[in-house]
């Protein structure tokens, strides 16, 4: 009986801990889709269908790996409560449509003043990708600065997005986030 109680307590405590350590200088697989190499340690958690890495806490900096988005699905979905008005990724979407898809998705998710600062052609695991730099505001929080890397492979959209508080945390974490995103290779 005593062992059962201890076992149950451990089970309860484990379920309370939703962050796990992602060790630095190692390879990891995220969402069964992205293989990454970390330089620094990160904290990881799953939220909805996405996996979020953070160094100082999710509201201050977060590197989000979205699940691959197929035709007719909403990209950038974390919380299902926003799902009903999220824009849809359609088969045949060209790269030039991606910045607006990203912007309208972020607005539908409740962010304000989403401003696209720059777009740039890039590569993700050797596939054509688009990098979009942006700023936006959280309703009850600070100004955020970030970038997203989006690639389309076999009519599926892959998105990794980094965002952090603009003045302090973006400069602190952006370099690690950049190198991690550059290391992404796709399993699917």
């Amino acid at each position, binding site marked *: 009986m005593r062992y059962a109680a201890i076992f149950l307590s451990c089970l309860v405590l484990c379920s309370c801990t939703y962050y796990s350590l992602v060790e630095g200088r190692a390879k990891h697989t995220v969402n069964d889709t992205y293989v990454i190499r970390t330089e620094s340690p990160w904290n990881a958690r799953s939220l909805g269908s996405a996996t979020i890495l953070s160094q100082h806490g999710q509201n201050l900096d977060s590197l989000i790996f979205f699940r691959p988005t197929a035709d007719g699905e909403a990209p950038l979905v974390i919380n299902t409560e926003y799902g009903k008005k999220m824009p849809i990724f359609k088969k045949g979407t060209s790269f030039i449509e991606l910045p607006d898809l990203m912007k309208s998705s972020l607005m539908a998710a*409740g962010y304000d003043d989403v401003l696209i600062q720059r777009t740039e052609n890039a590569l993700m695991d050797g596939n054509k990708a688009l990098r979009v730099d942006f700023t936006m505001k959280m309703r009850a929080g600070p100004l955020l600065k970030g970038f997203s890397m989006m690639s389309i492979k076999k009519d599926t959209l892959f998105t990794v997005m980094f965002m952090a508080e603009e003045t302090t945390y973006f400069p602190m974490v952006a370099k690690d986030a950049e190198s991690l995103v550059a290391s992404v290779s796709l399993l699917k």
Partner: protein
Amino acid sequence: MLKPGRRWGPFAHSLIALTLCACANNSSQFESGLRDATLGAPVLSDDKPASQQAEANSADVVLSAYGISNLKPAERPALESDEGGLWSALEEHERMVSVAGNRITDEALNGYIKDVVCKISGPYCPQIRVYVLRVPDFNANMSPTGKMEVWSGLLLRARNEAEMAAVLGHEFGHFLRRHTIQTQRDSVARGNFLQFAAVALGLAGAPAGSMDMMRLADLAGRMAYSRDHEREADGYGLRVLFDNGYDLTASPALWKRLKEERSKADSPDHFNLFTASHPSIEERAEEQTKLTERLSSRITSPQKGRERYLEHILPHRAGFIEDEIARKPKAAALALLDLLIEDGVRLGELYFYKGEVHRQSADKKGPEEALKWYGKALTSEGAPSKLHKFKALAHLRLEQKAQARTEFETYLQKMPKAPDADLVRSQLEELK
């Protein structure tokens, strides 16, 4: 043979429960100095003989019903009082609103709205702090501490200063009458009463379900109380319009349009006795029309303040519309745009956004429909230069590459330094 004691017992218990609840609903929660006797009672009386109606429904009756001389809002209560606790919580909320990411900090817009608030609030102006927020819903709110929130959804839907002032005046009414503390006290009193009634009904052996019935009656009572506050605040809204020489028809006109928007958006206003915290839109429009009829003759040259209003709102309108499109279903966005188009200001911009709603929709005919509206926008005043990029995207969807190329080129000519100019150039290369 009938045994009345057993057969009628549950019914009698239920009746007692409901009566007790009705008593609770009638408990007075007002302080001296606040108008309490007529809360919820109609200001105008339709049931008097025709000979007495004119006098009973005169402008003086309306104005005295919404008198402000004996009210003392915004006086800081003692910290240990129930109102003191409420103030502390509201001040903490205000601190969060003051740094909210969706707060609009544009000085011209804030200054203008603050001026209107000062105009309608007169001597209370120094006690009121206005926060303009980007929230795509028709609303404003005010707390007894003097914090007023004005949402972008209201600014987008009002067509002139008088309409905006009607809503701000309504919120000012809540502030004047300290409705928040009244609601809190009412809620505590009802909760206490329900606890007592639960014990009493248990001791009396009331049948299962009696308490549920009381809770339902209590809920209906709370909502009715809230609706009475809203009716009273509507009256104050009209009163401040009258005092400042605004066009009184602004208020009913706004309510009628809101009703039209909701029914077009497939979300008509269904009144529910147990959940409606506000009176139905029909009732508000009708009541405001009646009151307006009594007061209008006293205003010689009613002001709408349309030019002033548009001068301050139009620079922000595109952003407000984008918020609505991003967060509302297609039918709701189109219903709103149709009403804005009806108003006829800067139509090119509105047709462009109507095209955007169609282009962004999952509808197969979306791109074709979007192109129709983009075309209409280009022949109207105020179409934005970025329209050409979105027109190109719609052509791309329809695999009309030549037209897409032309539109992309026009976009680059008009906006050579756009943040996505390089991306458009590389897209043009692909199209060659």
